[in-house]
């Protein structure tokens, strides 16, 4: 079977997700301006430890190989290690994303002693000024301290995860050097207008010229750089980047949020993309296999306005979430279409009329946002 027909198979959906993100909590010590889940405060409907274990039982029965744990900051949950150990003991590998605040020397040693565990430290700048403008005061030092502790504990290869913005594209080489210094692997992903990111996307997303820079940089580094296949809209520039060239939402990708709602992907926390809840009868398996939303996402999708574009095979019209939260039609070009085909449509959508995320767990005071406007003005 060729790679292409394999992608066709994947578009029809799999028996179980291969990229399942589970956000354990909406609580977070930080308040990043581009947070995909608008996290900050804990939701009182959060799943209990018992409910969480029941989900892990279901995932084991579905033979889900590994899960991506995120939040919020997952380590604020008191049962964090308990759930981690339960998951791994059930044959489900874990990769978790953290801002590093809680990885002190003791926790680093504890993490280093576990098998089948990957850690992803979020960092959005190679210096405190660039990083903290987006992730908040002190967050750079926090991440570096966590990396030092993991290194000292001999954790092995962890990941440094960067959301690429207008302000850090020029630092890609330095991110790579930093990762090499820690024996870490670099992962860069695309900024999407999801969660609080919807409010800051217009100011933060890379310019068209920078997109070309990202594309060339990724081509040069090949498979050494992880991307979560998030830059496939850039394939329209020429040779395809490594990875699956498709939107996996509801087909191979999904999100379980902290209160058990199941969404098509982590970047579409909106009622329109909610497939069900793990607390419903039949649990996660039934949502994955039978929900109307997921079944419809596995049907052939229309290319719409992209149908006449020669690059459609390569770029697939880009990211559904990016279109949705910028107010663009789902069957047309991505807001960052490298051919500029979305520019006109984007320019006539009045700011504020785009769909808003269904939930907002931001803390009431957002100091970081004030900081951002200062730094972007300069």
């Amino acid at each position, binding site marked *: *079977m060729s790679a292409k027909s*394999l992608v066709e*198979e994947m578009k*029809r959906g*799999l*028996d*179980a997700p*291969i990229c399942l993100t589970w956000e354990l909590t909406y609580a977070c010590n930080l308040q990043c301006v581009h947070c995909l889940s608008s996290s900050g405060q804990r939701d009182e409907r959060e799943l209990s430890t018992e409910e969480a274990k029941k989900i892990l039982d279901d995932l084991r029965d579905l*033979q889900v*190989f*590994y899960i991506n744990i995120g939040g919020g900051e997952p380590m604020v949950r008191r049962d964090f290690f308990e759930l981690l150990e339960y998951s791994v003991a059930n*044959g489900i*590998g874990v990769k978790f994303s953290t801002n590093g605040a809680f990885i002190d020397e003791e926790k680093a040693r504890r993490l280093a002693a576990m098998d*089948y565990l*990957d850690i992803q430290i979020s960092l959005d700048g190679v210096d405190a000024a660039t990083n903290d403008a987006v992730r908040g005061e002190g967050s750079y030092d926090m991440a570096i301290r966590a990396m030092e502790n993991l290194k000292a504990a001999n954790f092995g290869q962890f990941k440094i995860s960067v959301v690429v913005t207008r302000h850090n594209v020029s630092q890609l080489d330095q991110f790579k050097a930093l990762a090499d210094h820690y024996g870490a692997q670099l992962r860069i992903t695309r900024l999407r207008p999801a969660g609080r990111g919807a409010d800051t996307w217009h100011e933060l997303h890379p310019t068209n010229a920078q997109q070309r820079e990202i594309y060339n940089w990724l081509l040069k580094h090949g498979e050494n750089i992880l991307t979560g296949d998030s830059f496939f809209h850039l394939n329209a520039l020429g040779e395809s980047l490594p990875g699956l060239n498709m939107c996996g939402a509801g087909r191979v990708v999904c999100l379980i949020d902290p209160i058990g709602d199941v969404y098509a992907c982590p970047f579409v926390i909106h009622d329109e993309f909610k497939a069900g809840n793990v607390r419903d009868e039949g649990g996660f398996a039934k949502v994955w296999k039978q929900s109307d939303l997921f079944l419809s996402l596995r049907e052939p999708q229309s290319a719409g306005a992209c149908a006449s574009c020669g690059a459609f095979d390569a770029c697939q019209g880009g990211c559904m979430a990016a279109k949705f939260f910028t107010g663009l039609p789902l069957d047309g070009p991505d807001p960052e279409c490298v051919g500029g085909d979305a520019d006109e449509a984007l320019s006539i959508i009045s700011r504020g009329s785009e769909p808003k995320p269904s939930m907002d767990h931001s803390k009431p005071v957002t100091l970081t946002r004030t900081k951002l406007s200062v730094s972007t003005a300069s």
Partner: protein
Amino acid sequence: MTVALESVLEIHPQVAVRPETFGALAYHYGNRRLIFLKHPDVVTVVQSLNSYPDVQSTLSACGVAPERWPSFVAALSSLETSEVVRERQIAS
């Protein structure tokens, strides 16, 4: 190692195989790689390796016609490279 009909193979102990309509997905917990087994017959053969003395006897037991053996040997070679299968370790 190159795989041949007389090779003695086993499924790698760190690999889990999950059936899918197109064949199966295999996941290697050690190198964290996801591998696609793109034909149901290949899946059957991989899952039967441990039960037979060598590749050839596995293929005949799984009902694979001899003219298809070379392509199965090639498929197993690439699975050996990605560590889905390996040379059988004699349990001591």
